[in-house]
C-alpha cells in the first residue's frame, strides 16, 4: 500500500523539536482534534512518528507553511493530500462510532438522603433490595462520570498483533481491505440526489442550481468532508 511506503520515508524526516507531523496534517484537514488513540493506530499503520504537539493552537496556514519549510525535498501538497484523506476517512469512522454521551452529570446522592427513606416498618426483603438498588445507582453514577476507560484502539495497540507470525488470524488481518474498484458515487449534500457539481470553496457536492444556492447561503464550509 502506498501509505506504508510514504510513512516509512517520512519517518526519516522526524522533526528534531519533537513536533509531530501527524498533528499538523490533522490541522490542515480542519480536524481540530484527533484522539491520542487514533494517532497511535495511525503511527503503527503508517509508521509515522507520534509525539505530542507542543503547539496545540497552531492555525491551519501556519501549520501548512511549517510543513512546507521542513519537507522541501518532498512534494508536500501531494503528501498532505494523501494523508489528509486518510485522516478524514478515519475521523469519519470515529464519528460513526460515537454515542450520545454529551450530558451534564448530576452530583452523587449523599448517604443521608437514602437513610431518610429507610422506614422501620418496611420489610427486610424490601430493604435489602433497596440497598442493592442504591448501591447500584451509586456505582453507576461513579462509573458514568469516571474518565473514559481505555478505548478498544488503545487495547489493540497494546496487543501488538503485528508481531504475530503472518499465518495467525488476527483482528487486523480480518479487515476486509479496500474495494477493488475505486468508483464512487456522489450525492448532493443538500437533497441527497445524484450530484454532478462540486463547490469550489469547500468541495461539497450538489445536484442543481437550487441546491447550490442553499449550499452557499447556509452551509458552505460548515462541515468538512
Amino acid at each position, binding site marked *: 500500500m502506498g501509505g506504508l511506503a510514504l510513512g516509512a520515508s517520512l519517518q526519516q524526516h522526524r522533526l528534531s523539536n519533537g513536533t509531530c507531523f501527524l498533528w499538523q496534517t490533522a490541522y490542515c484537514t480542519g480536524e481540530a482534534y484527533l484522539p491520542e488513540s487514533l494517532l497511535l493506530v495511525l503511527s503503527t499503520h503508517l509508521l509515522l512518528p507520534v509525539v505530542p504537539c507542543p503547539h496545540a493552537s497552531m492555525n491551519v496556514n501556519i501549520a501548512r507553511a511549517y510543513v512546507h519549510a521542513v519537507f522541501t525535498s518532498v512534494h508536500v501538497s501531494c503528501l498532505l493530500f494523501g494523508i489528509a*484523506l*486518510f485522516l*478524514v*476517512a478515519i475521523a*469519519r*469512522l470515529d*464519528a*460513526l*462510532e*460515537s*454515542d*450520545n*454521551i*454529551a*450530558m451534564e452529570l*448530576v452530583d452523587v446522592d449523599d448517604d443521608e438522603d437514602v437513610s431518610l427513606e429507610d422506614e422501620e416498618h418496611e420489610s427486610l426483603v424490601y430493604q435489602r433490595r433497596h440497598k442493592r438498588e442504591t448501591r*447500584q*445507582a451509586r*456505582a*453507576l*453514577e461513579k*462509573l*458514568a462520570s469516571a474518565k473514559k*476507560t*481505555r*478505548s*478498544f*484502539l488503545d*487495547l*489493540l495497540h*497494546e*496487543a501488538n*498483533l503485528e508481531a504475530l507470525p503472518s*499465518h495467525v*488470524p*488476527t*483482528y487486523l488481518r*480480518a*479487515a*476486509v*481491505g*479496500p*474495494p*477493488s*474498484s*475505486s*468508483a*464512487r*458515487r*456522489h*450525492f448532493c*449534500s*443538500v*437533497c*441527497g*440526489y*445524484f450530484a454532478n457539481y462540486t463547490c469550489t470553496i469547500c468541495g461539497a457536492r450538489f445536484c442543481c442550481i437550487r441546491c447550490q444556492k442553499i449550499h452557499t447561503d447556509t*452551509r458552505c464550509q460548515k*462541515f468538512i*468532508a
Partner: protein
Amino acid sequence: MTRASVGAGGGGGGGGGGVSLKAVVLDNGAGWCKAGVAGSENPEALVPNCVARPHSGKQRWLVADQVLACDELQRLGIRRPADRGYLIASELQKEIWERIFRTLLKIRPSETSLLLIEPPFTLPSIQKLTDELIFEEFGFRSLFVADPASMTHHYLQHRNPDSDLARSRCSLIVDSGFSFTHTSPVVYNVTCNAAVKRIDLGGKALTNYLKELVSYRTLNMMDEQWIMEDVKEKLCYCSLDVASDMNIARKVGAENYIRCNYILPDGLHFKRGIVKNPDVVPLAYRHLSLPESTNTPKSQGDMPMAKDEKVTVPNAQELTVTNERFLVPEMLFHPADLGMNQAGIAECIVRAVSACHRDLQPLLYKSVVLTGGTTKLPGFKERLELELRPMVPAEYDLKVHALDNPIVAPWRGGSLFASSEEFESCSITKGLHTKWQHFGHANKNG
C-alpha cells in the same frame, strides 16, 4: 489461548436428556444482550447492552431493560460497556450483567454453567477481562466461549437437517449487527478464522449516518441516537434500483411514496416515536416478499395513530425522510461512496469464500446465511443477491437465506448446544481456569 471453542464435537445434540446442570446462554452483543436458560426457544432477556439517563435529569441511571421502559427519550444519554464491538468497560458490564442474571433470570452463578457468545478476534487482554468478570466477580461454575457464526450454523443445522447446510456442514455466515459486519466461512461446523473478513460498519454506523444526514438537511438530531435508531429500524430499506427510487423520492405530492413522516417523541403526548403514515412505508419495497413481522413495528400499541395526514397533534414535531431511507443502507454495500476505504458487503463475502479451499467454495455459496439485526432491513437479501451474483462464478449455485429472527439466531444455536450432552465436557470449570492462569503466568516469567 486457554479457551474452549466450539466444533470438534460433531453433529448430534442429545436434546436435553438428563442434563443435571443448569446452563445459561449469553450472547453479549454490543447493541443487545440476549440471555436465557439453555434449552429454551428464545432468550428470556433481550435487552439493550447499555445504561442510559434522560437528559433532564436528577433521575438515576437506567440499566438494560429499564431503558426500554423509559418515557423520556429526548436526548437520552447513553453509556455502553463495549467499544467497536468489544467489551472494554468491565465495571459497567458488570452492572448490566448483574441486572440480567439476578433480576431478570434469577439464577445463582455458582450453580450455573455459562455459554458466552463473544465476537471473533477478541483481544487476549479483553478475553482476560471477560474471564475475570465471569469467574471472579460472578463466580460461574464453568464457562464455554463460542463465536456467533458457528452458533448460527449450529442452530440452522438442527432446525433443518435436510438442508444443503446440514448435509455439507458448510455455510457462509454474514453477521451484521450493531458494531460491525463479519463474513465467516463455517467449514465442517467450525468457523474458519483465517478466512473471516470484517467491515467496520454495522447498525450503529447506519444510525449515526442517518442522524448526520437528517441533521445536515432538516432538523438537528445529533443528540438523538436512541430515537434515530428507531427511525432507522422503522423506515430504512435496501433499494433494488437506486436510480429509480431516487427519482421517485424527488417528486412532490402523493407521487412520492418514498417520503415518510415520523412523529418525534416529546415525553408528553408521544412517549414513543411513531410513523405518521404507516401504510406508505412498505410501498417503497412492495415488490419484495417479506416476512410479515417487518411490516408491523412493535411498540405502536397504545399510541394514538395519525392515519390521516390532516390529523394534527398539538406541537407534535415531525421528521420527514425521503431518500435517506435507502441512502443510509447503501453505505453497507458501497462504503466507498462515503469516502471509506473498505470493500462493500458483497465483495467481503467473495473475499472470505476465496480464502477457503477451491472445493469448498461452491458449498459455501450454496448456503449464505444472514444473521444479526441489521439484516432485518427490508430488501437486504434481495439486494445482496443482486450484487453478489455477478461476482460469483456462473457455474456455482448462489443461495442467500434470510432468517425470521436474525437477532436471536446465534443465541438459539447456543441454547441448543448448551443443552446437549457434549456441552459439559467442553466447558472450562473455575478450578481449571485458575490453574491455567497460573500456568500462563509461570510461562511468561520463566
